[in-house]
């Protein structure tokens, strides 16, 4: 049996959403930064026991503009919140989005604190850790560059989706 699920990646500009998708699908990483315009779509099939899950991944452009992402999120089965460990401001987007779209909290989700390959430069404060706790997310420290926890994180979300 197979099933298709829509998964959206949301997070601030340049936190590494597109790189995470590229790493998850192609196991590749590009040093050069290319900004995503609108949305980029990719698909990946994951096998969970006897179930084949086809993930349609919507990599939404950086969430800087108010509400421009709302229609992309419509009908999502799962969300991946992406924050940058080296950019404390990137955590604030969680609050901003959940305030403008309160129903989003009902959607199964995981949180990727990206760029764990630069952990020395991380500036994750208590305040940010507290914020993550309020969202009750399963948090993964990921690196799009090395691929650390990327597949694991996607797989965990998939498990949430088929539960």
């Amino acid at each position, binding site marked *: 049996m*197979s*099933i*298709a*699920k*829509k998964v959206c990646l949301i997070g601030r500009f340049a936190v590494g959403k597109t790189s995470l998708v590229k790493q998850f699908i192609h196991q590749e990483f590009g040093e050069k930064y290319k900004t995503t315009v*609108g*949305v980029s*779509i*990719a*698909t990946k099939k994951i096998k969970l026991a006897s179930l*084949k899950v*086809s993930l*349609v991944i*919507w990599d939404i452009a950086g969430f800087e503009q108010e509400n*421009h992402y*709302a*229609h*992309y999120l*419509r*009908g*999502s*089965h799962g969300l991946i919140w992406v924050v940058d460990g080296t950019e404390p401001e990137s955590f604030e987007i969680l609050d901003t989005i959940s305030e403008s779209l309160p129903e989003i909290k009902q959607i199964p989700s995981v949180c990727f604190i990206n760029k764990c390959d630069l952990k020395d430069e991380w500036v994750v404060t208590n305040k940010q850790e507290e914020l993550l706790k309020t969202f009750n997310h399963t948090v993964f420290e990921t690196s799009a560059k090395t691929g650390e926890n990327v597949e694991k994180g996607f797989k965990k979300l998939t498990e949430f989706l088929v539960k």
Partner: protein
Amino acid sequence: MSKERDILKSLLLKEELQLLNQLEQKLLSKEQFTKEVSDVLSNAIKRAQSKNKNLEKELYIPIRKGVTKAFVENKQSIIDALLPIMGQLIRKTVTNSIKQFVTDINRTLELGFSAKAIKWRWQALRSDCTFAEILFQKTIRYQVTELFLIRQTNGLLIEHAGHSETAKDNSAVSAMLTAIQGFIEDSFNEHDSALQRVTIKNKDYIVTSGPTAYLAAVIKGAPTQRLETKLQQAIENIHAEFSDQINTESNYGENIEIQDSLRKYLITKNRSDKPKKINWTPWIIITLLIISGFSYWSYGIKQELKRIVDLSHSVPGLYVQSVKRIGSGYRIKGLLDPLAEITSLHKDNITLDTKPYLSLDEDIVLKRVMKLFSPYKKVTIKLTNGKLTINGIISSDDDILKVLHQLESIGGIKQIINNLAIDQQKQMHAFLLQNKLKNQVNYLLNNNKLSLIGNMKYKQQQELTRKFTSLFPEIIIDAEKTNIIDSTDKIVYKINNLFINIKELNDPVNNYETLDKLIDNLHLLINRQERLHIRLVGKSDCNGLFSDNHSLKRAETLFMILAKKGIDKKLMTTHINACKSFNNPHNQSLLGVSIQSVKE
């Protein structure tokens, strides 16, 4: 020390040093170095291109920048350089487009006179479309290569049909289309600003929306508006038929029924570019049918006209100059006699445009003559080939003269046979006056029966009767009231001289005149109350042994005849004139009965 070393070096490496100096000069002198490099540059590039795969990549950026700069800074020279190439390209493209355009016009013109075009025109008329629309629908080639049934809410692919040629997988394409859809809605800030058509890499996507899902069709070629309508019907049908499956989330490829349903809409519209031969057969059949129909119709018209002409010619007193068909009826122009009978023309919706004239048709001449003789009831008229025969009784000579005079003015009569007679009553009166019988005999004429009243001798009565009968054959003479003044003896004498010849016993009487005389005279005597006895004596020619018997039979036969005529049987007795011998020669005049009346 160094000086010595230099000397030693020059001694040992003199030639090499010279060579190094030359090389140094070549390298340091730009002009010299350029000359050297230019000699080997083309071969060096060639070799580097074959050995070093990155060369093109490395050269790409500087070359691109150089070309871009050249375009920006020296547009005119670039244009001048490209013009011969571009000009040819543009000419070729324009020529091809014109050729295609001419081909399309030719095809349309050919179709304009073909059976197919007539069929399509009929189809256009029936379906309330323009002919151009039908023409495009039938001739423009396009193909629906793929169909995506996509869930509205999240852009997930419900089902897909057709051969996928897209680089990305179908789920990604459907998500991408949904994203574009969402982007448009968001951009226009209107919910009904839905995506209807999008072109991605030369592929047209037509999008038709339903309540839960929308259908994206990948089109190759030039589709018509009708296809969009068809696709809209498709999404509506799919919603109606598979609402449960659409609302249930599952991966695509598992809804076989929806797939089958979608496949029906993978339409391919072909257009044959081969010049087709015109099929003349239907044209010939249609032409023949039209000619046959027209011939039949004109034959019917001619036949009807001929019938009307014949009918009009058959009417006596109508002279036909022309017969014309006007609407559903006919108009006859000509001359018409006032006595002509034209009622037969009215039932065929014929109107007459005629002037009066006097016809010499025999029927009309006869009518005219009959009209002249209408006051004379006892006159009959017959006209044959101009010969007029008039029979009958007319009241006076003056009247006869008058009608004969009027007949002369009637044309068409070549000969008159006048059999007219004056009234017989008047003639009879004149006859009696003429024969001086008026004072002795009176008469009464009633319904052709003339009763003679008065005294006259038997002979005179007989003579008068004979004359009347010859003059007035139709008149029956009644002598009952005539008083015969002959004497009884004379009558007895007359009776006794009568001989009733009876030749054959089976047909006894062959002389009725004599028999009538006998009976009349016998009645005269009886009426005078004379006492009589009548002996009827049978006679024969004595030719055979039974002659006496035959004589008796003859007498008895006459006895029975007279009895039937009212003569009392008591007055009559039968007798024979017996033969003395029986071998006399045969004589028919002797066979009969003689009468002997005796006054008692």
